[in-house]
């Protein structure tokens, strides 16, 4: 069983039915998220407008509008003819350029505050997880210490999946939902630190400590290690924002 093929439970938000609001933009956002998390891959054919519309419960007009937005953004190309259709562009990667733009557009205050919120939720989950973990839980958690492939996408997935797994072990639906929401709020920013080899290895160390403390049933240690894990990421982002850190991988 391969746990690290790019697919994520965090995608529930991506594929939940769409009810209200700017529908075409919402469809677009979800397809972008599916790309960012690897559910949809470069070169892959997208369903036809009618199929896409039926699957997501929107009108074909809305689906067409969404596809046209994606085309304008250069994420898909459309080929006419019998074997035609819309295809995800080849070699799609999570966009570090876009993430960097987001980072520069976010104030230091916002980054700090997001970090504090994430720390509060995640460390609460870790504390409860330390009381409730069984052997199967710990086994799953250890699958997410480091990815099997050394790609940016895999590192970022391991980052979010590890924390979702901690949430799953805690077994609080409210805290779990809050974790998913926090990860969505952090969005593409979390891809940036994983361009840095030093950060990659230090994150493995932190995840190891969190997993170890949960395995030991040590509530306080699990909470503290989780704070350290998130704090390291936030510090990296703040330093990168001040342009003190280079990006080594695209």
């Amino acid at each position, binding site marked *: *069983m*391969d*746990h690290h*093929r*790019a*697919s994520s*439970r*965090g*995608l*529930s938000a*991506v*594929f*939940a*039915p769409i009810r209200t609001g700017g529908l075409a933009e919402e469809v677009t956002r*979800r*397809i972008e998220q*599916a790309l960012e998390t*690897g*559910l*949809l*891959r470069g070169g*892959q054919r*997208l*369903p036809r407008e009618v*199929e*896409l519309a039926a*699957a*997501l*419960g929107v009108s074909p007009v809305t689906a067409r509008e969404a596809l046209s937005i994606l085309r304008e953004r250069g994420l898909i190309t459309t080929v006419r003819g019998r074997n035609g259709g819309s295809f995800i562009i080849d070699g799609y990667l999570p966009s570090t350029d876009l993430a960097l733009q987001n980072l520069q557009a976010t104030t230091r205050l916002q980054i700090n505050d997001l970090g504090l919120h994430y720390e509060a939720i995640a460390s609460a989950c870790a504390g409860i997880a330390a*009381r*409730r973990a*069984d052997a*199967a839980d710990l086994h799953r958690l250890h699958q997410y210490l480091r990815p099997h492939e050394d790609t940016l996408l895999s590192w970022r997935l391991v980052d979010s999946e590890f924390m*979702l797994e901690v*949430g*799953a072990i*805690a*077994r*609080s*639906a409210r805290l*779990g*939902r809050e974790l*998913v929401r926090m990860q969505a709020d952090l969005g593409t920013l979390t891809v940036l630190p994983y361009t840095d080899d030093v950060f990659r290895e230090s994150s493995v160390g932190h995840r190891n400590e969190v997993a170890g403390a949960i395995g030991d049933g040590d509530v306080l240690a699990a909470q503290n290690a989780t704070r350290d894990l998130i704090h390291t990421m936030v510090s990296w982002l703040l330093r990168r924002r001040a342009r003190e850190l280079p990006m080594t991988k695209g």
Partner: protein
Amino acid sequence: MTTELSPAVTRIRAQIGGVQSGLADWAVELGRQLAGVRGKVHGSAIDALALPAVEAMLGDAERYITGAGFIAGSGLVAADRSYIAWWQGPDLERVDALANFSTSSMDRYLRAEWFRVPFETGEPHATGPYIDFLCTDEYVMTFTHPVVLQAGGPVAGIVGADISVQSLERMLLGSLTALGPTATLVNKGGRVIVSAADALEPGDLVTEGDFTTSLDIGNHLVLLLDPVT
């Protein structure tokens, strides 16, 4: 009268058993219907066959089911592809639909206990309680049952139903309380699902040895009574 035969135990067995036998019946019916499809089985055919049964399940308030559906294993619709026909809630919201267009959709289900176990063993299974990040984001139990197209044939997919732990509490707490102040329903791993004891939260782990009486509820759940003092 022994505890085994008390009306409250019978009630709990009937309620959990009802969910599981309902799924077993549907698995047989759907297997027969799928076997009757001429030529290649398309997603639209699966949708058309599965939806009426799901509608009936979700529409029956007595059954407390929050989500249900069918997931095809690799081979039924296409090699190395799965197909999900799953709906949730009173408005029959379609779940995870874009995954049907993904070339990596198989991975999403292969690692999920509720799919993997019945698919690999050919036996019904109960998963949870767990937080269902894939569909409802709720704390649920998922009951699943393998579907075969002919008796003794390979497993073609699974049918399943989600019941929230909250619903299980509404369904069972009265019966548990009637059995004693610490009567507790757990899964085979000792994970609390519903307990009459205030101190035991759903999700906590208990040791079976801490109770003097342990009764099987179906094949997957255990009722613990009378703590060792």
